[in-house]
């Protein structure tokens, strides 16, 4: 104890050697302050979205706002999951304009089918994207063939064109293929959107894998497919997961193409149906927010689940710049 006492009160001459307490405290305070700001900014809006989705319409539109749900209710979510069950006849119809009455957007029963569509499209895109970009990235990164650079640049160049610029011709192409309003149209489109970036990620990652491993595999008896499967696939897991997550999230989020290429509940994805609520005659804020929460859950789960891989997977691609 006394030893500690001593150290805390050093002779004046040795003050310079003392651990600087004040700056460390300052650093702690600074970090805490910044962290608080960060949390408020990043999580605040989503927290408010979730909070209002658990309120009734009256509570959600109260002035001043209810920061937390006064009596949390799952009614909005229930409405979403029950929307398809209702059969409408003269007897069971709701009188009055739903615009101000029932507070349930007419597109509500499309929400679950669109959730399914989004999932189906996302999973297909993720899977096919992986297959396509894996093979292409392998070929470009590993095999020395004529036109290799040209292929790479062409692939990357397709992403320089803004989506909105592709929308018109793509609509015409998809129409010519007879694929308007099909999930296949979305899958193919999203592949084209995501593949260049995932190829880029994978190439960067592949280039980090020692060339000698490739040579060893080849002389050990692997063809190109074998080398890809036996060496590159198992060794680039983080990049693969990052690419997969990226592909899924992109197709989950995508809006412009889906807006133009789909027409009804058979192919519409979640963003389209939700944007419909906002522009509908009916706007129930609490309901729309509940739909928003549903749309956020899968990608957030995915992102948090694969957090480690996303960062390390991006690493190779990023730092080379």
């Amino acid at each position, binding site marked *: 104890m006394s030893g500690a006492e001593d150290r805390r009160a050093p002779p004046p001459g040795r003050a310079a050697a003392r651990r600087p307490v004040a700056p460390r405290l300052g650093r702690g305070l600074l970090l805490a302050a910044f962290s608080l700001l960060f949390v408020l900014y990043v999580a605040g809006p989503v927290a408010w979205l979730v909070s209002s989705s658990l309120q009734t319409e009256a509570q959600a539109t109260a002035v001043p706002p209810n920061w937390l749900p006064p009596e949390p209710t799952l009614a909005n979510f229930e409405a979403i999951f029950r929307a398809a069950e209702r059969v409408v006849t003269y007897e069971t119809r709701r009188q009055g304009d739903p615009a101000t009455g029932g507070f349930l957007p007419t597109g509500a029963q499309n929400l679950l089918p669109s959730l399914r569509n989004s999932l189906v499209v996302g999973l297909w895109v993720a899977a096919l994207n992986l297959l396509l970009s894996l093979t292409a990235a392998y070929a470009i990164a590993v095999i020395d063939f004529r036109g290799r650079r040209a292929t790479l640049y062409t692939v990357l160049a397709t992403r320089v064109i803004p989506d909105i610029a592709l929308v018109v011709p793509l609509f015409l192409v998809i129409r010519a293929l007879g694929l308007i309003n099909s999930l296949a149209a979305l899958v193919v489109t999203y592949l084209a959107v995501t593949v260049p970036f995932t190829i880029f990620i994978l190439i960067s990652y592949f280039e980090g894998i020692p060339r000698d491993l490739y*040579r*060893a595999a*080849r*002389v050990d*008896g692997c*063809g190109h497919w074998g080398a890809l499967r*036996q060496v590159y696939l198992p060794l680039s897991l983080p990049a693969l997961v990052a690419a997969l997550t990226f592909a899924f999230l992109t197709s989950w989020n995508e809006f412009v193409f889906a807006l133009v290429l789909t027409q009804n509940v058979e192919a519409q994805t979640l963003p389209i149906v939700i944007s419909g609520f906002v522009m509908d005659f009916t706007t129930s804020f609490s309901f729309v927010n509940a739909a928003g929460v549903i749309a956020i859950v899968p990608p957030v789960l995915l992102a948090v689940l694969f957090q480690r891989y996303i960062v390390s997977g991006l690493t190779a691609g990023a730092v080379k710049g």
Partner: protein
Amino acid sequence: MATIVCEGLTKRYGAVTALEALDLTIAHGEFMVLLGPSGCGKTTTLNLIAGLEEASAGRLLFDGRDVTWLPPHRREVAMVFQSYALYPNKTVFENIAFPLRLRRTPRAGIERAVRAAAEQLEIAHLLDRRPHQLSGGQRQRVALGRAIVRNPAAFLMDEPLSNLDAALRLSMRSLIKRLHHQLRATFVYVTHDQAEAMTLADRIAVMRGGLIQQLDTPEGIYERPANLFVAGFLGSPPINLIEGRIEDGAFRRAELRLPAPRAEPGREVVLGLRPEDVEAPAPHLIPLAGRVELVSPLGSDTYAEVSGPAGTSLTLRVPKGWRVREGEGIEVGVDPARLHLFDRASERRIA
């Protein structure tokens, strides 16, 4: 086991020629070393033999069979790399077994072959480990195991010892030599280390700029370097080179004069003298005197940097038993038969 024949083998990358019309025959069971500085085309040659790169021109024959367009996995060659190139996600056992699995060898056969190879390389106790748990020497043994477990047409080695420390390098060197004796297989070994080349090779191909400079036994290359480059590349410390011209059947440079009976007069030449080719002065030797500038004792030998006649600076091995001091004079004898003469323009050997 195979004889490997390269006929006019050429490799170009765009405008750059990495290998220019290589003609090389490697006999069955021969230990061929490709020696040269980096970028000389030796690794390209190895890759072409392995099939890892495709030739721009020329042919490659294994036992008379044209394999030029055969991909590596159909060529039955085994390869060992400087970086060991072990599959990090596989155990030692699986690493060694990998080529066999690809060939659909029956399970029992694989087990037996891997064990045998592991015993031979004294790594049987490591079979369950993963590569990152091994030391460098152990890793290279595993890599060797992966090569010898099959029955390849040839063993290709790409600077396999360069990543090891000096002591380990020596023991691995003798291990490889032993393997060659046991297997009696064709070895093609790429290195930039002349000592490895000299100790291991049946024949050495010294390469530079995509061309073979000299193809000969180690002794031949050391004794009769075909040109200035080969002379300079082999030997440690390197050969002393002195520019001068031939006059009256002798090499002349200012006051320095050394007999060169067979050279034609008037030629601009470079004279080569290996540091180790000097002895205590004797009547049949030509005397060479100078002042010692720096002494480098290596234990077994002592070398001295000497400022010699005609403004030359020479590195000489101090004859056994001598004591020299910096700043003192020294006089040694040179056997004229051990002098090398090169044409200065063509850099080729004259005598």
